[in-house]
């Protein structure tokens, strides 16, 4: 019962962050700013959702898989943000 | 949803039909080769949706295994033919500098 309540709370938090991410994607002024929506808000949302589902997970393996998925998503979106930003910014960083 | 009482399967085959003919229409009408290939893929997805949505689900909600196997085969063939088409389009482009076949090119845009 307590765990269910905790999960629900985490889902609510995830909802807040997912919505913030989507609103950010729509409202932020240019491409570089919009990368924030992807790499920060959305990944936190995914993290909270993952946490909520880990609490409900039926086995240790399932929980581990959810953690792996979250980590992969984190790394992938950080790298994606970096590569897209590099494309938008004309100057190479100093060597 | 609408006048017809729409269950989930109906929704998907209606979408499948729409995608099929959108894709077919654009594939026939669009001059650019790459757009034709995109349209070919959209059409394929539409056909797969119709194929799968028409089969009844198993007792545990899982789609019909034969339809799934057919669609899986179809997806692999679709990607193979798309890749082949892309390859031909690229070679054609390298050789002629065009991105559409001469008989398809709209008036005035062909240089």
């Amino acid at each position, binding site marked *: 019962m307590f765990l269910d309540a905790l999960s629900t709370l985490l889902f609510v938090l995830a909802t807040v962050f997912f919505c913030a991410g989507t609103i950010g994607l729509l409202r932020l002024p240019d491409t570089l700013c919009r990368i924030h929506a992807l790499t920060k808000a959305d990944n936190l949302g995914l993290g909270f959702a993952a946490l909520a589902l880990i609490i409900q997970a039926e086995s240790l393996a399932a929980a581990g898989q959810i953690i*792996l998925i979250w980590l992969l998503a984190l*790394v992938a979106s*950080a*790298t994606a943000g970096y*590569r897209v930003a590099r494309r938008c910014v004309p100057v190479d960083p100093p060597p | 949803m609408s006048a017809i009482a729409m269950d*989930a399967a109906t*929704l*998907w085959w209606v*979408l499948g*039909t729409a995608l099929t*003919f*959108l894709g*077919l*229409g*654009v594939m026939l*009408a*669009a*001059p650019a080769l*790459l*757009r034709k*290939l*995109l349209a070919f893929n*959209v059409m394929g*997805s539409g056909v797969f*949706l*119709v194929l*799968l949505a*028409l*089969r*009844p689900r*198993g007792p545990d*909600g*899982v*789609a019909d*295994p*034969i*339809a*799934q*196997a057919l669609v*899986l*085969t179809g*997806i*692999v*063939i679709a*990607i*193979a033919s*798309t*890749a*082949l088409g*892309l*390859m*031909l*389009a*690229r070679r054609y*482009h*390298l050789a002629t500098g065009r*991105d*559409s076949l001469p008989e398809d090119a*709209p008036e005035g*845009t062909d240089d």
Partner: protein
Amino acid sequence: MNAVDALLALVLLALAVACLWAKTARTGSLLFITFGLLLALAWVRLGAIDVALAEAAIGAGIAGALLLDAARQFEHSPAGQNSARAPSPWPPSLLMLFLAAVLLYALSTIQPLAGDATLAVSAALESSEIAHPVTAVLLVFRAYDTLLEIAVLLVAVLAAQAAPSAIRASPKYDPALAAVVGWMVPIAVLVAVYLLWAGSSRTGGAFQAAAVLAGAILLARFSGQWPDADRLWQHAGVRVFGLVTFIVVGLSGAFTAGAVLGYPAGWTGGLVLGIEAALMLSIAASLLALFGWKER
């Protein structure tokens, strides 16, 4: 949950229209990738989890990379303006509307029934020694189809290779990317093997595993990692290995099981897994060959 389905369908339709009428080839490709991503979700909603897995890996991953790779070439061409011309609408679209209406009417009269074949599959599943029905259909009941499919894939590769491949510049070294890809690729290879193994009891199998494997190799390629391993994949032997294994096992079935493409009792599980492993390698190599990649 019907609201989820309806919304998903609407988004898919909007994406398809936007993709087909996109201004440039690259925009169209990006929209198609997003379309593929959501189509995978639609397959999940339809209960077709095997198809969803393949769509996620092939439709959204490999096809996306292929299209973007090709779109770049058309982007920089002076004639690239041609693709800006949206398809000229009227006469064909009226025909399409008419055909769509005919098909919709025809489909609405069909009563979905579990056909004899479906019933036969669930009845024979026990004796096929494979727990997952889709794998059983692909490699036991309809093995001929799968065999020919692999042959078709090889023919496509051969045809693609008849045209000399475009030469690309090798990617610039990027330390951050190299670090990330350096540990992502091994995980992806592991996931591919896991999917292959999972195919014998639940969703998974050679196609999905091959697509993930090809994705892993492409990740390495796009970041300029492991060029030697990449060259190994371009060996023609890897591409035909799967088909040859399939044919050899299939023919030997004539002696051991009394039917070509049959499996001797008790051996089905192991043989199918072996064939699938060989197919995984070959399909992955073929998908890679279809990129027509040659480094400068």
